[in-house]
């Protein structure tokens, strides 16, 4: 698995969202494993199908 600096990534993302450093400090303990989890998902890209988001035309009867 590609090594990532989960702490820096988490801090930067939360800072980009406008959260204060004090708030970020309270979130990091949970944000770090979340970022690591996201990296695990990124490793799967080559084998993943299209997302479960396919738009269906309004009024189409579901199958």
């Amino acid at each position, binding site marked *: 698995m590609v090594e990532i600096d989960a702490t820096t990534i988490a801090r930067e993302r939360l800072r980009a969202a406008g959260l204060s450093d004090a708030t970020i400090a309270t979130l990091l303990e949970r944000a770090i494993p979340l970022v690591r989890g996201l990296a695990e998902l990124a490793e799967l890209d080559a084998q993943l199908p299209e997302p*479960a988001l396919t738009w269906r035309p309004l009024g189409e009867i579901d199958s």
Partner: protein
Amino acid sequence: MTAPDLAFASIAQIAPRIRRREVSPVEVTAAVLDRIERQNPTLTAFITGTADAARAAAQEAEREIAAGAYRGPLHGVPVSLKDLYLTAGVRTTGGSRILADDVPTEDATVTRRLREAGAILVGKCAMHEFAYGTTTINPHYGTTHNPWKLDRITAGSSGGSAAAVAAGLGYASLGSETGFSIRRPAAFCGVVGLKPTYGRVSRFGMLPAAWSLDHAGPLTRSVEDAAIVLDAIAGPDQRDPAASSRPAPGVAAELRRDVAGLRIGLPRHHYVGLVDPAVEAAFDAAVATFQALGAIPVEVRLPRVAYATVASSTIMFSEVTATHARWIAERPDDYGADVRARIQLGFCLSAIDYVRAQRVRRWIAEEVAATLQTVDLLVSPTTPQVATPIEGGLAALGDPGFVVADGPYNLLRLYALVGIPAVSVPCGFSPEGLPIGLSIAGRAFDEATVLRLAHAYEQATEWHQRRPPLA
């Protein structure tokens, strides 16, 4: 019937007596309201009571039934709603301070369908704030206590609904599930909790947590009762863009078909040695019961399910934070600390993360669908542990968060993620007397087979007949 017998009867037991006018909806409702008045100060199962309206509705039900206008098995039966279902004229708080004074002018679809079925609404149940937590320890409305041991949690977010049903405060409650918020409270409180197929029951008028994960479903004291409630609330609804247009054939009538020959898939690598020993022992005994009923256990492997927790969390966090983006910016201090933190955590996620998680979702769903071509059902312990101490809070639950590994939490998150129907039924008690639950899941829109096995198991055991040690 004594008052406790009346309060703890099932819908299937009480309904024919109501229909034959052996017992009046007024009497039944009075017994339930009396119990709520006595027990709710201890349990905090309800945020808002609707006693006056319930008495009036019960009198109307009595008149209708006397006039021969019987609506069905829910007519005159007291039920409750998790406080995220819009209820016209009754405040609907979402367990929050932000919506503390919000009184909707129209009903959610499920509220309306229950009223049309003649059910008597006795109150709005306590819940984890905005359905975004797993303990029903709520800083705004108090902590909901487990009727089996008052110092234990009910789990969440449908904790009030589970406690109400377990304690005889109504015959059914409508909960909701985004992660596992019907089934874990059901397991912790020793009741049945059904999460139907995504789209089987309308979400219109349900305060959203995560739109693509939210499910409405009943908590009851028996599988047959869950089927009765599902039959009343399921079916197409043009006001919910995710509601399936498939007709919802009644499932209650299918419950007593034979289960011999059903192939039940056991994803053992996700729970063997990974759950509380009492939970594993109870589950192993349940598998023996399934075999005695003629079902065929088959070990299955679901390696992709190792990613269910992180995929579900990514989708959930993204959608919930999107829902709350304005409030969290303008009124952060009006949230409880745990929910505020969880919403803020959603800002860690990018659009690419969300789309990728939805690709993982489809990838996992494909594996589950393929497996359900080789077996009829998937069965596992509902949750790795029994009810934990309130004093320990969320930490006592020991939920791992976002691990990517084989483990029971992936199974716990799986069914809401892929949208297949799943029910939790009581399957035993721990040495301390705390309930244990097992989950049965099946193919999309095949609630009938899921509930058929659940009913057969329930009738072959006596767990559902036990009552918590309340006054």
